[in-house]
């Protein structure tokens, strides 16, 4: 297409044509953007996965305490029914259970509080990491808009990037937190608590951690990205950080 013919097309009719970015191309650009800024992405991801690892570990120790209490309660019932011949260790466990009813409740409260704190720390960590990664790219966003990118297209690129980074980091974060706590419990409590209840709790927590991590990353990225995309390109290009 010659320059001349293109120029002739540009009139009112020509303006109607649309700017589009196919999804495959958008994914390619977004992934490339993560890959090329590898170390930067790792640091951003660290903000997410450490938060999620902390969240997971706190929740997981809570789950372990609950499972352990259930195991001991089951033993107590079995002893009462006469179906289990208690060892001295079992008796010690059952005694500690009945003695510390109030303390158990207090421990539960502490754990709940810790779990909320973990979530807040996680939110701040993720927001901080993602906010920074969008802010340092205002100029890039402005440039893309000069080249004909629509607001939605810019947001789409960040959406893909955030979903990918958020999902992957959350999974890694979960595995980290889960493995560390499980290992500690394995050493301190032995195999007793690693039953069906443990695996069920693990899977549930995996779901929760991934959803929390991905959604938080998503929100922390999309809001500043939308703000940047809606700026006039001149303003986005002017931003200094």
């Amino acid at each position, binding site marked *: 297409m010659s320059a001349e013919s293109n120029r002739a097309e540009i009139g*009112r009719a020509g303006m109607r044509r649309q700017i589009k970015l196919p999804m495959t191309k958008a994914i390619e650009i977004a992934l490339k953007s993560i890959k090329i800024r590898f170390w930067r992405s790792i640091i951003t991801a660290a903000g997410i996965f450490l938060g999620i690892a902390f969240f997971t570990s706190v929740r997981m120790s809570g789950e372990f305490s609950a499972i352990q209490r259930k195991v001991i309660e089951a033993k107590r019932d079995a002893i009462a029914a006469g179906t289990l011949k208690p060892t001295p260790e079992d008796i010690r466990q059952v005694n500690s259970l009945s003695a510390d009813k109030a303390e158990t409740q207090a421990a539960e409260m502490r754990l709940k509080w810790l779990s909320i704190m973990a979530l807040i720390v996680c939110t701040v960590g993720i927001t901080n990491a993602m906010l920074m990664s969008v802010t340092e790219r205002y100029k890039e966003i402005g440039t893309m808009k000069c080249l004909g990118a629509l607001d939605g297209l810019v947001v789409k690129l960040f959406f893909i990037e955030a979903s990918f980074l958020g999902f992957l980091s959350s999974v890694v974060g979960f595995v980290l937190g889960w493995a560390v706590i499980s290992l500690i419990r394995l050493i301190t409590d032995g195999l007793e608590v690693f039953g069906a209840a443990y695996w069920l709790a693990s899977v549930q927590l995996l779901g929760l951690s991934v959803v929390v991590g991905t959604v938080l990353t998503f929100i922390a990225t999309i809001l500043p990205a939308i703000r940047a995309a809606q700026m006039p390109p001149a303003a986005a290009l002017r931003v200094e950080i």
Partner: protein
Amino acid sequence: MRANEYVVRTKDLVKEYTMGDQTLKALNGVNLDVYKGEYISIMGPSGSGKSTLFNAIGGLDKPSGGSVFINDVDMAQLDAQELAYLRCHTIGYIFQTFNLIPVMTALENVTLPTVFAGMSTDDGVERGIELLNLVGLGERLHHKPSELSGGQQQRVAIARSLANNPSIILADEPTGNLDLNTGKEIIELLKRLNRDQGVTIISATHDLKMLDVSDRIVWIRDGKIAKIEERKDIDIRIGEMEGQGEGLH
């Protein structure tokens, strides 16, 4: 002069910035007509409103008053989709700071606008290689901006601005970050594109080297056009100066 010979027209263009309780008029009633195929330089000291005019003509910022017509279309009437189309197809931008996407290679930077324009990857890459050859960077297709010198980065930016055959190239201080010789090369390249491809070039600058190649020079002062000089008038003036120089001997 027939109206369709204008590629850009501005009418009573005003841009105000509010700083605290003060209102600053960066543009204060600018009327400028640019002919097709012209090489025009907007000259003026920093803070004179050059860049503001550049942003208004390029649709990068909304003016506070007045209108900008690109190919007889009032830019204020365009919706976001149409404005994006205009930026993609009709106008190519060159900046003082190059503004290449740092994570992309030279070729990917040049290809990006063709992706937005819906061109297939193969066609886009072919076009990108052709353009990088045109600006003399055929050997550096896969270099990142950080691996290129300032002059080379600006060449990539020029190739990128041409990606979708624009009718206008807007250049904001294109030589501002370059040394004397590299700046000259870039100016020559722009002039060559102007001459060979017939693309209109509007350049905001305070680089006097630009005077040599410009068809017209628009002097801006305090948000207003102070004077517009034709190329031939400048030739005469330079001639006069040379003549006086000889007279002194």
